[in-house]
């Protein structure tokens, strides 16, 4: 998730880490580090405002999410 320093990122991060998926990678990116991330992540995070999470399963990615419950829902559903 993208951490814009507004306090929401902690909640999003925790939900992403504590939702089970058999094979999952969670990346937390501080907005000031945006130029240091991989090109794939950089292209994804330019859309949206405030702390937010993008949930990809397989080749499908969600719109930016700012509600922790949405992360759980999207990780548990077959396709976001």
């Amino acid at each position, binding site marked *: *998730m*993208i*951490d814009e320093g507004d306090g929401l990122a902690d909640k999003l*991060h*925790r939900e*992403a*880490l*504590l*939702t*089970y*998926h*058999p*094979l*999952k*990678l*969670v*990346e*937390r*990116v*501080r907005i000031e*580090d945006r130029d*240091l*991330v*991989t090109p*794939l*992540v950089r292209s*994804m*995070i330019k859309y949206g405002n405030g702390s937010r*999470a*993008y*949930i*990809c*399963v*397989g*080749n*499908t990615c969600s719109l930016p999410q700012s509600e922790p419950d949405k*992360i759980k829902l999207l*990780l548990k559903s*077959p*396709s976001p």
Partner: protein
Amino acid sequence: MNAYLTSGDPQALDALELTLEFVLREMTTEVGFASSVDADSEGEEGGFYVWEKKELMEASGKEWDLVNKVFQLVGEANLPGGVLRLRDDSSDLAKHLGLDVGSFLTHLRRVRETLRTYRDSTRKKPFRDDNLYTYPNCRIAEGIIRAFPLTGMGLKEALRVVGELRRRVSRRLQGGGEGLLEDYASALLASLSAYEVTGDLKYRDLSLSLGGELMSFLKPEGFTDSRDSREVPVMDTPNESPNSLALRGILKLGLIEDRFKVPEETLGKMLGDYYQGPPFYAGIISSIGATQRGLAHVV
């Protein structure tokens, strides 16, 4: 950890916390985690861990009634007493005592602490082997780091282990012979967990370096035990196999950079011919199943 995340069973969380407390209390060294604790002490096999009923009554004090209801002493032929074991499933014991499981486990935790304090003050602790082997250190570090958002325990101690890792991995955390597949694969998973939980980019960069090294173990049949070996260890017996660890790490790294890939033909070969049955390939099956359903990437 996964049992709790998927079931919400408080017994699974209790087991996780008890395990972490034990490791952090009994196995932590200045740099990492000790390799083992002896079973024998003062020349007696199991001496530190067994109880006789009279001693148990004395140690329990006013908790004796509960201790007697929930624990039994399970003896072995060559031991003078027995080890403590719950008489039944925690949920059944709680029901029997008219408590909800959460309250029962809290109460049980207090009783265990009373008994442990008594035991530690009256017996000599067994010898601890403080050798810092890379593979077990990285496995426990990964577990502690992954559990940290849930338990709040041990992150500093686990990150000390990851802090010892470099691109080239040895059999021991602080030097020794060239690392085997299990060392590199467990190091990668520990490093990735540090990146995921802390968000610190230095762990991502370390993971990418370790992944580069790990790819040199990959042959058409799977990951070999060492760079110059032809053996491909794939069976989970009883621990998750080095190939399963390596596959999991490389698949996760593939979500960061697409140079990390395992060809489909190789995945098929890693599954072998199932001659020992699917449970012995559970880790690899789980990872391949995840690739079919879609790996998850949260950014």
